[in-house]
């Protein structure tokens, strides 16, 4: 299975230098679609589990924002705190990700996949 990361931002503790800045996409998501997007994100399959909490990087006083667990829909890999930013700040998700959600009818197509039996490549890197 070949996957690509999406929804990682430089400001996040698990973001990388090559990731975009989150602040550029704040308050740009369609409020009417945000709930559907969050449901999709929260129902992704946990691929790489991270047992730690993350804090709101835009406003640390707000506290808990999720986890760094990597979720997937069989195409993309996103972090466990992405839904928080879409919900709390109307963070606009990349268009290609939205198109995948629409294509999948807003349902996770790999909900029943056992990843222990899969060979996974992320961003061209063989992970397991």
């Amino acid at each position: 299975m070949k996957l690509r990361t999406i929804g990682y931002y430089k400001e996040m503790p698990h973001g990388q230098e090559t990731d975009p800045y989150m602040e550029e996409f704040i308050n740009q998501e369609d409020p009417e679609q945000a709930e559907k997007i969050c449901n999709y994100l929260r129902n992704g399959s946990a691929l790489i589990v991270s047992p730690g909490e993350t804090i709101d990087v835009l406003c640390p006083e707000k506290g808990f924002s999720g986890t760094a667990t990597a979720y997937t829909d069989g195409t993309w890999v996103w972090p466990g705190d992405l839904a928080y930013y879409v919900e709390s700040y109307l963070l606009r998700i990349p268009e290609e990700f939205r198109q995948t959600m629409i294509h999948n009818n807003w349902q996770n197509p790999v909900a029943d996949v056992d990843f222990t039996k899969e060979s996974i490549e992320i961003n061209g890197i063989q992970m397991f």
Partner: protein
Amino acid sequence: MGAGYHGGFGATAGSHSHVVAADSTLVGNGKGFELKEAAKRVKKEKGFTDVAVHGSPDSISVIVNKNGKDKEIVLDHRRLAKFLKSDKGYDGGKIRLLSCKTGSETGTFAQNLANKMGVTVRAPSDTLYIFPSGRMVIGPNMFTNTGRWIDYHPQKRKR
């Protein structure tokens, strides 16, 4: 004591902490189910009991899901020690925390737990990532394995 597994504050809506047969799992409600499953795949280390729980340098947390939203309940080392001491799945011996940053050299959680329990506590220095194969990466992200496991031994209280 053999290498056991003990962990996963997490899933099961409306549940309370409870012990699961064979491994003993402290389960909250929310994202813990994923952690519980992931912890089972980790290669055990002889002499250690694994404790899987969401963590940070100074505390651990149970993530509960209320009305579809995840909420964090923060616990200190005393609460975890109390739980472990009363849990059938833990019968003494060293502890390995499958818990992000609890072994961070800037934090206190693992050392405090070691002091409280009187046993060695092994914990990750940075964020922990558990792969489906059971492989673990310690680092700032899942691609960067720059962290390490650190053993914290019980220290006597200074007077």
